[in-house]
């Protein structure tokens, strides 16, 4: 806050313990969460402590450093995010009407979906590109830091119970077919058509520690950087800027923007409401 604003509480014992835990995890295992946004990180550290049945974060630190199974549980808790197909349908509608026409001008399109989690939004994009007649010339590179969620994303198997919500989202996103044409139901799950996977490439990539690996025409990084602090956000914004072709498209979550970043002036707003930007310099 400004000088007139609210005085933040000083660093308490718990903040120190969290800091030491993250430092230990980084130095011993190389997993770097030191620049994650503190409030949600602290929530998840507390949750880990409770799940492990421990009384303090210092005790959690000791257990994580001496017990790799405990580390695995901790990493899973830190990385799993909740997602859905066609999350924010108006984003996909805007992509259909404003981005798809631009992509038609390219003979080949590389899309990077950074932080794809269990893949729901990747399959959504594959369906959209298919309906726009673009999919055969696209390759979607879907990355996440967590190998377990990537494994699930590769399978393309999702709970049947979610399909009702997803069908509504699909229609709101301007879907041109029957959503149920894209999957086969079996017991309480559905599997998406193998044809949708043809041009998907899932691989491990950590935005915190890994660099650029290609040049892309579209980069989607939605509701991923909200878990990072401002320093790390700046670094990732640089990485994304450097990975985009000139006039490439960048899409973020609907409560994220480039307003508080240094890269703001290097993009034009293609659709302000739906957070679609175009690299122009």
């Amino acid at each position, binding site marked *: *806050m*400004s000088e*007139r*604003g*609210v*005085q*933040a*509480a000083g660093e*308490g014992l*718990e903040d120190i313990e969290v800091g030491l835990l993250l430092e230990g995890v980084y130095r011993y295992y190389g997993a770097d969460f030191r620049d994650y*946004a*503190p*409030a*949600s990180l*602290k*929530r*998840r550290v507390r949750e880990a402590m409770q799940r492990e049945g421990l009384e303090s974060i210092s005790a959690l630190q000791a257990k994580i450093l001496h017990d790799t199974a405990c580390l695995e549980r901790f990493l899973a808790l830190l990385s799993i*995010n*909740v*997602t859905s197909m066609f999350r*924010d*349908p*108006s984003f996909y509608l805007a992509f259909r009407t404003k981005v798809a026409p631009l992509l038609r001008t390219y003979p080949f399109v590389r899309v990077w979906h950074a932080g794809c989690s269990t893949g729901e939004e990747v399959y959504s994009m594959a369906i959209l590109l298919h309906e726009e007649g673009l999919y055969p010339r696209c390759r979607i590179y879907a990355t996440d830091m967590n190998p377990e969620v990537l494994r699930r994303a590769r399978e393309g198997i999702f709970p049947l119970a979610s399909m009702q919500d997803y069908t509504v989202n699909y229609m709101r996103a301007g879907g041109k077919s029957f959503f149920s044409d894209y999957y086969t139901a079996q017991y309480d799950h559905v599997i998406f058509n193998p044809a949708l996977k043809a041009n998907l490439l899932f691989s491990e990539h950590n935005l915190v520690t890994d660099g650029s690996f290609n040049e892309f025409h579209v980069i989607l990084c939605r*509701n991923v*950087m*909200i*878990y990072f602090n*401002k320093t790390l*956000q700046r670094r990732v914004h640089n990485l994304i800027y450097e990975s985009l072709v000139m006039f490439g498209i960048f899409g973020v*979550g609907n*409560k*994220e*923007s480039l*307003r*508080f970043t240094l890269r703001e002036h290097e993009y034009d707003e293609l659709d302000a409401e739906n957070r679609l930007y175009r690299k122009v310099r």
Partner: protein
Amino acid sequence: MNKLVVVGTSTGGLNALQALLPALPQKFSCAVVVVQHRGKEPGSRLREFLQRSSLLPISEPEDKEPILPGHVYLAPRDYHLLVEPGNFALSTEAPVYFARPSIDVLFESAADAYGENVVGVVLTGANGDGARGLARIKQAGGLTVVEEPTTAQAPEMPEAAIAATKVDRVLPLSEIGLFLNDLCHRDHEVN
């Protein structure tokens, strides 16, 4: 030093906020952050609806947006809203007790970041969200205010909050706005 006022409400919250917000004058020197339980569907126009009752500007914060005094911030649909020292942060973590935004998540982060400078307010609601968060605010030295259950459209949420911690003030809805106004104003004079 100015305060951060965090308000949580669920069932009946629209009426309660419509009664509370007009009592906050244009020169109100605290930041107000509101979680009203809401569905994840787009297009509710909740912000526009509440703005009609408020002299202070109401907005749904973006990730990492600075917290400014004299503003009312409304938690956006389908996200948890958290506060950090100086700014907001958003999260799409799983709903907490079926709610996203969750009152507990906001309150606990406020207690962590602003300690004794937090004023927590629990209004009408038909579930127990906010009780844990209010207890955390109290524990961190903040001030806790709960709507008098008999004036609440749904008394469960105020009752759960009162059961969870030794609340500083239990006030009828009509007095909460004035109380906050008085508190922030007095606070401002002293500094």
